């Protein structure tokens, strides 16, 4: 500990923040579903897993060109959205949200089973392997994958923010998230809204799947454990805020870095526990999350 100098500390913090951006696309996927229907999607990890597997199939088995393979994978997972809406969620339209939340648990389990049926349980090659060479910025050394993920996350967030603020569908999503019955009475096609939300979420999860499996070097159900961090990230950042999803992811990433640093002195497992501790503190101070909208309750 005594040898910890400023540069190492900066490096750990930056690396942590960049690790956070690795989670960000998945957190965003979680966030967009919550925002458009107030459904807490417990199948987010499975969307990530399926996304990674589909990306593997298209990049390794189908297309020889990486870019084309990834494009195909994104189109294929994009179809998952309307499929889930039609088959699973439409009967629950305008019903208590709680029912839909429970259904996502079942959806998760069945997606998990399906993925094992199709792709088996042995780890498969990662669809994209990132250069092993770290990227150096002055004295700071960063893994190349983090830099890519930071870039991808920035693009995703900007696009989503523009989508929410500038497009009619974005506005419909925010409206439907608040009051589905009212939105329908005003002519909003809530079925399309939900299908779009799931499509964006699935695509965003695929992006996360490609990035994360690139870090691990393989695709396997281990990715599901990573997804657990995303729930924490989303809640800490504020469930209904795009910026919050990113901030929450970064906080979890930094928390992991610091936890990892302290692990030798505190005890094993502290790396995973420390972000949760941070989350707990944040929730005590800001129950709606860092950037979450406080509900207006007029009494």
């Amino acid at each position: 500990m005594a040898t910890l100098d400023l540069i190492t500390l900066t490096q750990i913090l930056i690396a942590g923040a960049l690790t956070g951006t690795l989670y960000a696309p998945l957190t965003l996927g979680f966030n967009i579903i919550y925002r458009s229907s107030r459904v807490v999607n417990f199948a987010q990890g499975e969307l990530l897993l399926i996304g990674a597997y589909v990306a593997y199939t298209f990049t390794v088995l189908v297309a020889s060109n990486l870019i084309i393979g990834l494009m195909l994978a994104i189109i294929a997972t994009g179809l998952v959205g309307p499929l889930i809406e039609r088959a699973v969620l439409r009967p629950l339209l305008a019903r208590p949200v709680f029912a839909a939340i429970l259904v996502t648990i079942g959806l998760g389990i069945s997606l998990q089973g399906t993925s094992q049926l199709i792709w088996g349980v042995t780890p498969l090659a990662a669809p994209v392997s990132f250069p092993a060479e770290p990227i150096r910025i002055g004295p700071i050394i960063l893994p190349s994958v983090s830099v890519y993920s930071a870039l991808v996350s920035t693009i995703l967030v900007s696009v989503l923010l523009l989508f929410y603020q500038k497009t009619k569908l974005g506005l419909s999503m925010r409206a439907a998230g608040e009051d589905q019955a009212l939105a329908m009475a005003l002519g909003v096609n809530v079925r399309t809204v939900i299908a779009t939300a799931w499509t964006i979420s699935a695509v965003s999860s695929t992006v996360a799947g490609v990035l994360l499996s690139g870090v691990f070097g393989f695709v396997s159900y281990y990715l599901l454990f990573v997804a657990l961090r995303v729930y924490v990230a989303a809640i800490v950042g504020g469930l209904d805020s795009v910026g919050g999803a990113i901030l929450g992811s970064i906080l979890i990433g930094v928390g992991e870095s610091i936890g990892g640093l302290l692990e030798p002195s505190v005890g094993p497992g502290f790396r995973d526990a420390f972000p949760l501790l941070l989350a707990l503190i944040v929730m005590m101070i800001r129950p709606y999350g860092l950037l979450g909208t406080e509900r207006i309750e007029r009494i």
Partner: protein
Amino acid sequence: MLRLTNIEITYDPFIVVIRGLSLQVPRGQIVALLGSNGAGKSTTLKSISGVIAAERGRVTRGTIEFEGERIDNLSADKVAKLGILHVMEGRRIFRELTVLENLKVGLSDDDISTAFDFFPRLKELKDLRAGYLSGGEQQMLAIARALLGRPKVMLLDEPSLGLAPSIINELFKTIRRINEEGNITILLAEQNAIKALEIADYAYVLENGRIMLDGQSQDIMRNRDVQEFLMGLGESGRKSFREVKAYKRRKRWLS
């Protein structure tokens, strides 16, 4: 013309709330639907707009026709697209969105100035989150919102609920204006019978899911039973307990 013929509305799966109800809303008129709590006013409106599906209710018998087309049990967004917009009870607005965003949701005119013509107050508030508006302003927003969907028919559910008398007066004047200038047919469900009959052309009185009485507004307004039971005027001369009891029994048997 909006026409309900002998409809029966059932909630989850066998609670019958409305039975054999028929009513007509001719184009360009204001039709009032009067009755006390639980009479079935809101349910009737919800069945027309299709919102009732959200409460696990459905039209189990009879037909609802709009301009010759059957719309019973159609999903709410499709009904809205046909030009029937429902302003729900209790000032349902999107509280987290700003006033301007509220006005843009769903079917909406690109030209929002129509809304500000009828409700100039909203213009000053347009960047405020709607949850911070006062009750009267929220009701104005709800109506203005529906107005931008270019409705042919507007279903208004208890617009006067919980508002101060002066604001109710202002609101009802605006409703009349919307009907006359905007050429929008209005079906108005109200407990405030006096106010509703002032602006309505025709009225139906609903009780326990049935129509007890209907007629031109002036006639309904002069009806002694309506005066006593819906307006609370109590000057119908029916003073003794026995008379009231006899009246209630008669009403029960007739229903």
